[in-house]
């Protein structure tokens, strides 16, 4: 199957999942369940990665700024912009593509192989709408929230690292955070996070939904879903930067 066939089938999947739910209550329940699975269950890993990203960025920026002519507040400015523009949305979403993407692909793949999807279809349920749409909607709701959380914790991590290693005191860091702040950067980060959220949920859903074979194929689909999602995230990263900045 070539790239165009995959792309066409992916577009058809997206189109077919948009339909009136058979039962709003069950769809709402499924949406909430997915918000919990994708969002709440990822908070731990997102928090740990974000804090350390901020801390490492602070230490490495300070290491490169050796001249006393540059004020120390610049470190906070660099940490802030790096975290908001790139690290929080892109790197966290690449991690989420692994965590969430593999889970979605293997869950749907397992349902396909064990005929659970066929069972739903026989009952008269639009399986794409019931299984995929709540995942995409949940990702669109919770992943931007995780990105905001990651940005906050990343900057906080940078501040703590600066203080603990004696690079710059918290007061100086806070001053730097307010220097030349461009609110549009946050809008840009949010645009990125919504785009990535769609990729992270829809691409693995596609690979999982159309699995053929057995457990080996589920593993392969899961790996492929993560790889393709990561590549698409990086491609979208460049495209959005070129268009929006």
């Amino acid at each position, binding site marked *: 199957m070539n790239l165009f066939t995959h792309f066409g089938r992916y577009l058809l999947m997206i189109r077919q999942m948009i339909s009136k739910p*058979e*039962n709003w*209550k*069950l769809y709402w329940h499924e949406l909430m369940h997915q918000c919990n699975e994708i969002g709440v269950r990822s908070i731990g890993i997102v928090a740990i990665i974000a804090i350390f990203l901020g801390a490492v960025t602070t230490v490495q920026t300070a290491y490169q700024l050796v001249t006393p002519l540059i004020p120390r507040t610049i470190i906070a400015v660099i940490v802030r912009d790096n975290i908001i523009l790139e690290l929080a949305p892109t790197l966290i979403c690449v991690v989420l593509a692994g965590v969430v993407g593999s889970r979605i692909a293997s869950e749907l793949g*397992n349902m396909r192989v*064990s*005929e*659970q999807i*066929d*069972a739903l*279809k*026989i*009952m*008269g*349920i*639009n399986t794409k709408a019931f299984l995929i749409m709540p995942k995409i909607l949940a990702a669109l709701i919770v992943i931007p929230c995780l990105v905001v959380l990651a940005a906050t914790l990343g900057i906080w991590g940078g501040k703590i690292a600066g203080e603990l290693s004696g690079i710059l005191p918290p007061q100086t860091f806070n001053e730097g955070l307010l220097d030349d702040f461009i609110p549009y950067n946050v809008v840009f980060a949010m645009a990125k996070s919504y785009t990535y959220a769609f990729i992270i949920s829809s691409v693995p859903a596609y690979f999982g939904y159309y699995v053929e074979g057995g457990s080996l194929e589920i593993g392969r689909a899961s790996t492929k879903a993560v790889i393709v999602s990561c590549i698409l995230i990086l491609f979208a990263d460049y495209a959005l930067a070129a268009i929006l900045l």
Partner: protein
Amino acid sequence: MIEIKNLVKSFSDKTVIDDTSAVFETGKCNLIIGASGSGKTVLMKCIVGLFEPDSGEIMYDEGSFTNMAEDERKLLRQKIGMLFQGSALFDSMTVEENVMFPLNMFTNMTTKEKHDRVNEVLARVNLKDANNKYPSEISGGMKKRVGIARAIVLTPKYLFCDEPNSGLDPKTSLVIDRLIHEITTEYNMTTIVNTHDMNSVMEIGEKILFMHQGKKEWEGSNKDIIFSKNENLNNFIFASEFLQDAKDMRMLEMKGKIDDNRNMDELLK
């Protein structure tokens, strides 16, 4: 009643169902039998709409399934129950939630009514005290019974069973066969069972369709099968010498040549 007319289904250049026509009667257990790869699963999947046939027609009581719009098919599917080979229970749900799922999706019943209905069908399939167990915590036979309970919870008009005995011991298979037969009569459903289990054929085969290399090779009942002269059918059903002997014995018995134990002893000499 379900009728298929000149059904053809191919994958790439391989024809899996080749111009097959048949009628599946209401209130009876209609069996599709055949060796592995004979096309019986594909035929069943075509009938329920999981595969689209290349040509031919599938008729339900409600009209031509082949020509139905997707919305009409969705409505018809609510009258269809299906038991899958691997039971296809939802892993993340308990037995009770699995059986209740169609009720939650398609009815406006109150919680109490739903619980009552679930308990009623679970009792019907002789499954009690398993409501809160997950599919991974129950045996293969129990999974099949949960699958049947989920299939009949909306009181369907049509019941499809794909290899209901696969992976089960002969005794449990018999229990499942009898259950399917009883439910078919009780609910007056059109039941189609896909099997290659000899016990099922003899136990519940009120109407049997034998598939061979994608074609309908023979049609009849479990009473006719003993006297069938079809070589492919005989090779399939009475594959072992033991079964062939059993068949000969049964034929003699039915012709009245074995009338008591003494006669049988003489024949066995």
